[in-house]
């Protein structure tokens, strides 16, 4: 192998005083060769993003590397002058940031933002030349109609499109190194697949090295040449992708890989068919906007005559394209938004159009677990207070509510002491378990989980999924489970509905649907899911 594009040796970045560990990264060494894709995986907070920022010279001021070197084609990033560093950024190395929603400047047209990259590195001087180059780039990343797209603002693009704009920007000056930090976390599998394909194509064409950060093993297995595994700031394992995935040596790697849910639905659970569904939705329609005194602008039909039924003890999965109305459905059922028309029966009563005042008795029976566990807990209230709030609203005494909360914490595998701590003192997985405990404290009939595990890394995700499996058995709970991760759906759900454009396009038992998808969109969805070659667990 010739000189690597990027070679990091012995890099250590200390954390500021008072953090949970001394160094964000410690003695890290890794390299990326030309025309090579190196995937970095590891738990949340293991230092992946800090590594990426260090390479770009974009560490936050609080973090200063204390040892090691970062060679970009032989030049030490940590030692070069700021002007030189600026010259290197964007021309020799470029980065695709994790969050396409926030990484683009909302007030500048995307074309301008790409052109700025060219401008900054003088190479292409003429305004016209730059313009045509921008259009070429937009075409390269398979964006439709580049001339009009270049004039769009970021908020006018879908998540996938923005992600591709970021990539186009990164490629603008043919950099030798591309760093991509979890570029697909927020995307549904179809869009994700497009982007991965694109990256691979481009890399091959331009002979660049790519450092790709992700926690999705499906993605790793699809594109990685080599894999680097990080834990608590250290590199614990490194090797060729197929080797690491199929024959992991480090225990941590093995644990991670074992946590990846399989795409095969487990055998259907034996359940007795109840006579009446606990939740029945019929012809539910929701139109946003359009009304209002001074006109709310465009009207969006987010739900268009959706019907479904949920049996006691059943877990119903909802999958579908981004923007297909999944969250809207969940929020209508929980009555956080008012449906425009239709029926929602809980037990026997139709609550679809009840005024808020009369909803209170039903609130207890339907509980929701939100996608973002941190934001769904009031940061200023102790965990205990959050859990007992609901039961006490319905007349339980404080002692009884606390006793129940303690029991539930035990159920979700947290010690009792957790009651007196604040949400920020917990990890993401723990918080999600607290949120589940809070929902369960209401002793609901139906639990709605909207993307409740999407933000978690695989090991934590696995804990939460296990917890849900356990609880639904013990409490005979009905669950409406919304996800874009087909593996997760396959693992947990008894039945699945597939949504597209506000309608249900297909529905059936999980195994049957996986085996034999009939609707074209369902087929596309399954096809897009990354295939995995993993170590047998």
């Amino acid at each position: 192998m010739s000189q690597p594009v990027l070679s990091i040796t012995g890099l250590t970045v200390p954390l500021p005083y008072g953090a949970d560990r001394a160094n964000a990264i410690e003695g890290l060494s890794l390299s990326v060769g030309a025309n090579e894709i190196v995937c970095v995986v590891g738990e949340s907070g293991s230092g992946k993003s800090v590594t990426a920022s260090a390479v770009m010279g974009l560490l936050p001021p609080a973090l200063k590397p204390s040892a090691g070197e970062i060679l970009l084609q032989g030049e030490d990033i940590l030692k070069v002058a700021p002007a030189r560093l600026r010259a290197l950024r964007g021309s020799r190395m470029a980065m695709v940031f994790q969050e396409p929603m926030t990484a683009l400047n909302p007030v500048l047209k995307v074309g301008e933002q790409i052109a700025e990259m060219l401008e900054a590195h003088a190479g292409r001087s003429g305004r016209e030349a730059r313009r045509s180059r921008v259009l070429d780039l937009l075409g390269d990343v398979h964006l439709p109609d580049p001339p009009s797209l270049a004039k769009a603002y970021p908020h006018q693009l879908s998540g996938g499109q923005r992600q591709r704009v970021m990539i186009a920007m990164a490629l603008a000056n043919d950099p030798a190194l591309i760093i991509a930090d979890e570029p697909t976390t927020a995307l549904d599998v179809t869009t994700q697949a497009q982007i991965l394909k694109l990256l691979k194509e481009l890399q091959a064409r331009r002979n660049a090295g790519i450092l790709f950060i992700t926690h999705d093993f499906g993605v790793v297995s699809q594109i990685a040449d080599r894999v680097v595994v990080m834990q608590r700031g250290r590199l614990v394992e490194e090797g060729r992708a197929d080797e690491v995935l199929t024959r992991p040596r480090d225990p941590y790697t093995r644990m991670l890989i074992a946590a990846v849910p399989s795409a095969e639905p487990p055998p259907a659970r034996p359940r007795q068919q109840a006579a009446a569904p606990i939740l029945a939705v019929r012809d539910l329609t929701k139109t946003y906007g359009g009304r209002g005194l001074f006109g709310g602008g465009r009207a969006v039909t987010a739900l268009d005559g959706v019907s479904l039924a949920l049996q006691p003890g059943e877990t119903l999965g909802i999958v579908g394209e981004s923007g297909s109305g999944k969250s809207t459905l969940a929020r209508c059922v929980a009555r956080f938004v008012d449906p425009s028309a239709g029926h929602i029966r809980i037990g026997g009563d139709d609550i679809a159009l009840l005024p808020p005042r009369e909803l209170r008795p039903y609130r207890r029976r339907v509980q929701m677990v939100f996608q973002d566990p941190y934001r769904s807990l009031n940061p200023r209230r102790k965990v205990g207070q959050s859990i007992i709030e609901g039961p006490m609203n319905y007349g339980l005494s404080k002692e009884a509510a606390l006793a129940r909360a303690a029991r539930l914490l035990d159920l979700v595998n947290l010690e009792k002491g957790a009651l007196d701590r604040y949400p920020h003192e917990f990890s993401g997985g723990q918080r999600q378990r607290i949120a589940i405990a809070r929902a369960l404290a209401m002793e609901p009939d139906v639990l709605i989980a909207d993307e409740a595990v999407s933000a978690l890394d695989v090991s934590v995700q696995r804990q939460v999924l296990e917890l849900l499996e356990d609880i639904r058995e013990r409490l005979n709970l009905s669950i409406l489970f919304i996800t874009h991760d087909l593996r997760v759906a396959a693992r947990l759900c008894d039945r699945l509905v597939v949504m597209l454009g506000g309608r249900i396009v297909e529905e059936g038992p999980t195994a049957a649907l996986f085996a034999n998808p009939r609707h074209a969109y369902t087929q596309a969805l399954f096809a897009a899911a990354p295939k995995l070659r993993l170590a047998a667990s």
Partner: protein
Amino acid sequence: MGRFLAGRLAATLPVMGVVAVIVFLLLRLAPGDPAAILAGDAASPEQIAAIRARLGLDQPILTQFLSWLGRLLQGDLGSSIISNQPVAKLILERIEPTLALATTTIVFAVLVAVPLGVLAAWWHGTWVDRAVMAVSVLGFSVPVFVLGYLLIFGFAMQLRLLPVQGYVSITEGLWPFLSRLILPTLTLSVIYIALIARTTRSSVLEVLGEDYIRTARAKGIGETQVLWRHALRNAAVPVISVIGLGIALLISGVVVTESVFNLPGLGRLTVDSVLARDYPVIQGVILLFSALYVVINLAIDLSYLLFDPRIRY
């Protein structure tokens, strides 16, 4: 957009209605009697009562309000009780100096405060930041009239660079016009600069922490460009809001500044007519102020469109 405009303009009516009612009640409940003022020192109660009757001040408040409203709807603001001049004429005569002062103040304040705020945010936590903040807070701490006197003392009396007082219309030459506005503008803009600079600082500071700033840096563009092109435009909306909110503040400040520098503007007209209980003039001026306020707020909301393409109406 059209509907938004129509809606907003429609919403001004209730606002102005509220203002009209509040002001009317406040004035009529306040003690003091323009008739007694007109009648003079040696007037008998009968003479005062006769004047009250002639002015219609002996009618029930509701009747007075309705007749004022009726005339207003015909576009008639009435006449000053004291000087007998039409209110519209009085206001027209006074509007120019106030408008001139307000404009120079806003322009000057923005030109100074925004760069100061940006600098402070950029040098966040350093002495530059602290100096800018200290200066702007200090500016905020000196009563307007004290500052006015100090400026007059320094620039007009000691250095003899500028005139002490007065107003000259721009039609009589740019320098005569400007020279008389410089000190009042400085005086009035200090508070304003403090307010805008602080808002700009915190707003830019917030934006500097955003992901797209990191993206911009990752492109390898210079820091100046990061600051002006990427940060400032995103920080604009709160800054514009505070400029808008500050206009109410400006109107209050104008009152004092106009007296100190003897500018024949609306602020003085307002104070004079309040002190003389010249009801029709006060009502007219306040109505104008509230209309102005509504229009300015609308303009500000519209200007958001310029800075943030995500905002639509």
